[in-house]
């Protein structure tokens, strides 16, 4: 059970090979249903190559659903963190407070997007089923590295999707959320290694050139390639119109 998640900077960009505990196979039943909705379930090791992708759609509603999906993933992750062994048995009071706050912030984002998409007379994505079997929720390093990866991914995703938003008010909303995600990312990184709030894996560390010391953004297809590793078959996503 060692090396569940590699403590390097590309954790989420690589396939995860680690052996998996049967009792880790939780299916999370919807991001807003809370931790009580966790259900123990069986699991198939075989990935289903025929699984269909859910497309987030086009235009502003597509971007909103894309953001909604990523927020669901983050909220589901933190919901499992605060129901997990590390949080319950080992975490300091200060770290517990951090995880409680992050769990609630992300849950607020989820509920906001579902409401905002409905308010735009569009249909929100279904409640996605995550697959966090590669994360060891009993171990600090695994939890924090996964949190770092999800938060950094969120920032890169919002930064990369801003250009696709047509309505200026939605763009400002995205800006209001992405800076909070960046604050989360900085905190989690500082918990792993103090002063690593802006690592050279998320910022272009050249000092000249057009992207010097800017955060590296990711396109929706790049982001979903990573996110899909943490979504169960039937919940994997595509964003074919956001490019």
């Amino acid at each position, binding site marked *: 059970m060692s090396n569940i998640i590699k403590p390097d900077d590309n954790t989420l960009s690589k396939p995860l090979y680690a052996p998996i505990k049967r009792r880790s196979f939780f299916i999370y039943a919807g991001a*807003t249903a809370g931790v009580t909705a966790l259900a123990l379930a069986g699991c198939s090791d075989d990935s289903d190559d025929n699984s269909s992708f859910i497309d987030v759609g086009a235009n502003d509603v597509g971007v909103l659903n894309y953001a909604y999906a990523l927020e669901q993933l983050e909220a589901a992750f933190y919901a499992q963190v605060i129901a997990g062994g590390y949080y319950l048995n080992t975490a300091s009071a200060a770290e517990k407070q951090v995880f409680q*706050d992050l769990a*609630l*912030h992300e*849950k*607020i*984002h989820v*509920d*906001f997007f579902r*409401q*905002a998409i409905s*308010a735009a007379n569009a249909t929100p994505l279904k409640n996605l089923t995550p697959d966090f079997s590669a994360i060891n929720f009993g171990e600090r390093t695994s939890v924090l590295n996964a949190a770092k990866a999800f938060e950094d991914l969120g*920032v890169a995703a*919002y*930064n*990369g999707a*801003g*250009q696709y*938003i047509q309505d*200026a*008010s*939605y*763009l*400002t*909303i995205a*800006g*209001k*959320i*992405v*800076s*909070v*995600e*960046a*604050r*989360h*990312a*900085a*905190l989690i990184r*500082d918990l792993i290694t*103090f*002063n690593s*709030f*802006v690592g050279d894996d998320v*910022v272009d560390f*050249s*000092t*000249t*050139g*057009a*992207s*010097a*010391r*800017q*955060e*590296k*953004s990711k396109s929706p297809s790049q982001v979903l390639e990573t996110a899909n590793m943490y979504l169960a078959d039937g919940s994997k996503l595509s964003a074919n119109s956001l490019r």
Partner: protein
Amino acid sequence: MNLFNIISEIEKADPEILDKLNSRRDVFAALGNMSKKAALAAAPIALGSVFNKAVGQQTLNSANAVLNYALLLEYLEEDFYKQALAKTGLIPSGAATAAIQQIMKHETAHVNLLKGALSSNANPKPKSFDFGPAFDNYANFLAYAQSLEDGGVRAYKGQAGVIKSAGNPNDVLTVALQIHSVEARHAAHIRSMRKANGTANNAPWITNAEANNAVAAIYGPGNPTTTFPSEENFMQAGIDLTSLDSSYTRALASEAFDEALDDTSVRTVVGPFIKN
């Protein structure tokens, strides 16, 4: 720092400024219940919050205007950290100095890339910056640093829509977003440094409009307040976030979303630091 000079300087720029205030007394009322030293330290801040309500608004309408505004803020931040690092003994050696050096390098790079993007349209760097009592001690330094970083985050956010309306030439929007999130990471870390220093019990994110002895106007409303509410805002896109779940307090809702600020409100706060 001479309060009357500040007012007279602002009067030169805007002869009607005092008419826009309810009365001169407002200025002094804002300073009234502070100790003399605190009042001096907070003078630009308190003035900012008074003027803010009177004249704050969005004035920029082209991508270049936004980029020059960003350049001014990055010049200011870069110079702030340069002055701080130059003052022996101000910032503890070790992790704190390393963090500030890293942040300053980012600001320098942002200056360079904005200058590059603007090319011949770049405004010149102001002659100098005077941050008043910011470098009197480490606590002051951190409070001002937090104000500039949180303010920078609000300032960039406030211009995203302007860039969009201007047609987003050369995808300047993505550049602005990519700088914006780096500023947010800086802000989070500075806030953690303040907490570690024991001078402010704040989280890396902003709870309500709590300034915790940083510049209050940075967390307050802009103009119009409907577009630029204070950081205590809990209504987003017409949705009352506290209505979505009984566990969502106003404080949590305010933390989950940062707020934007119009350029005039930002300039009102940082203007007194700029010496031309």
